[in-house]
């Protein structure tokens, strides 16, 4: 049995497996995401995320990967090309944005993951012009990325990093309830959006949560 500390690197196949699992979990949460988006958006976020991860699954399963860059890019391109909507570009960028221009890696470890998502976060901000507190997925993604960096700086394990990121995302989702939307379809709600969490932020949390679960499973059963 492997201990937490031993899980330092995931190879491309493992990263692929991890995102297949993430996709499964996101799809399971389709009704939840749709419900959240219905409250203050147009109710299609769950549908969109489902479409995106179904496409990602299709494209991941079809191929063997040698670099983690290719895996992550495949996830992002699948979302970008199939989903549409605000979240197609935003979540597409969450994956593509981080590997764009990145030198090829055969293994994923916490420092690389932190680097990738840091770049993604920047790319998302450039694309969507939103920042923390605007009631978007950034409200969950930014704290998650910060936690990844911190853990990476402190030489924590990948699992430890993901646990922290999940927690950061979760808190971000909670905080997003208090924000007024400045982007997307909840914008016109003004004060009325308060009390409702952001749909995209919820997806970010589910993504980190299921990454953590997968890596945790690997730690336990490997």
């Amino acid at each position: 049995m492997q201990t937490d500390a031993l899980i330092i690197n995931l190879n491309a196949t493992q990263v692929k497996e991890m995102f297949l699992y993430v996709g499964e979990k996101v799809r399971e949460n389709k009704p939840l995401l749709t419900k959240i988006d219905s409250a203050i958006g147009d109710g299609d976020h769950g549908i969109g995320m489902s479409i995106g991860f179904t496409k990602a699954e299709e494209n991941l399963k079809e191929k063997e990967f040698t670099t983690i860059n290719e895996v992550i890019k495949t996830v992002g391109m699948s979302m970008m090309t199939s989903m549409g909507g605000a979240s197609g570009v935003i979540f597409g960028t969450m994956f593509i944005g981080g590997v764009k221009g990145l030198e090829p890696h055969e293994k994923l470890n916490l420092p690389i993951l932190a680097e990738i998502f840091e770049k993604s976060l920047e790319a998302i901000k450039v694309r969507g012009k939103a920042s923390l507190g605007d009631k978007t997925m950034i409200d969950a993604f930014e704290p998650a990325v910060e936690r990844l960096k911190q853990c990476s700086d402190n030489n924590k394990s990948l699992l430890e990093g993901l646990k922290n990121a999940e927690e950061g995302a979760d808190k971000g989702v909670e905080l997003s309830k208090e924000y007024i939307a400045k982007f997307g379809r909840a914008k016109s709600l003004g004060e009325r959006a308060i009390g409702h969490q952001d749909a995209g932020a919820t997806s970010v949390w589910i993504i980190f949560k299921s990454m953590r679960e997968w890596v945790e499973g690997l730690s336990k059963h490997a």
Partner: protein
Amino acid sequence: MKKVINNPSDVVEETIEGFLAAYNHSFRKVENVNGITRRNLKDKVGVVIGGGSGHEPLFMGFAGDGLADGVTIGNVFAAPSPNNVQSVAQAVDSGKGVLFVYGNYMGDILNFDMAAELLEMEGIESRTVLVRDDVASAPMERYEDRRGIAGDVFVFKIAGGAAEQGLDLESVAKVTQKASDQTFSIGVALNPGTMPDSGESTFTLADDEIEFGMGIHGEPGVERTKMMTADELTERLMERLLDESKIDSGEEVSVLVNGLGSTTLMELFIVNRKVAQILEDKSITIHDMDVNSYCTTQEMGGLSITLLKLDSELKELYDAPANSPYYKK
């Protein structure tokens, strides 16, 4: 809500197939993406419109002679993906560039803008005109936040007309932008539509309530009130519309009374009657009135009124011939 569909995830593909089965002589599918173009594309600026589906006959119904050249079609209420937009733009480009015209929604902007970047890398020039006609969606101070609703139709018409005249991309974009700036709408919602996928309602309203200014995806409006008569309702809408648009006596307009889905043409005519009376009372000249359900939200109940303020340039383009299966001039 019963819907005559097959697998919910196939509705967009099958809608396009059904459209093309009927109008195959004039339109063709763009390969690999949910988009169509006219068959007889001309050597002129390409006009590409689009957005989320679920609002039929918008957008597919507005491709044709003197109208759009290509239509990029997203999933229900979801903007089309960048590669979808890009493929349609490539398919219509004759080397003279492409004008994108669509409603002002974050999802659409993100996807069309990304497509524009990709097109630029391929050497295809593009311009964008956003439609922001819904005066209830944001106050004038936040004009850039206003959403696009049925006013799309007028802006598409002008863009199509200008491109057909052979103007260059800059000029087509310029007059289309003017049309967009002069297009003002306001709507009222009576009953929700339902999502084909989940069967969920786009909003809830009490049996005796209506909501002024509600958006076409169920975005919250400006006032929820009790149901009222057609005349009262029309007066309320027109008051706000004239106030926001600053259209005044002596000016000339084209009018669209647009049904949102299940509201009958009978009701739309009754509203149109009052719209005409109000405009006449205010000595605003009616150039044309159109009463139709062009921009719908599934079986949503309600309607919107759109005014396009005309000058001689816009009037000429408005009157230019146009021909599509769902819109003719």
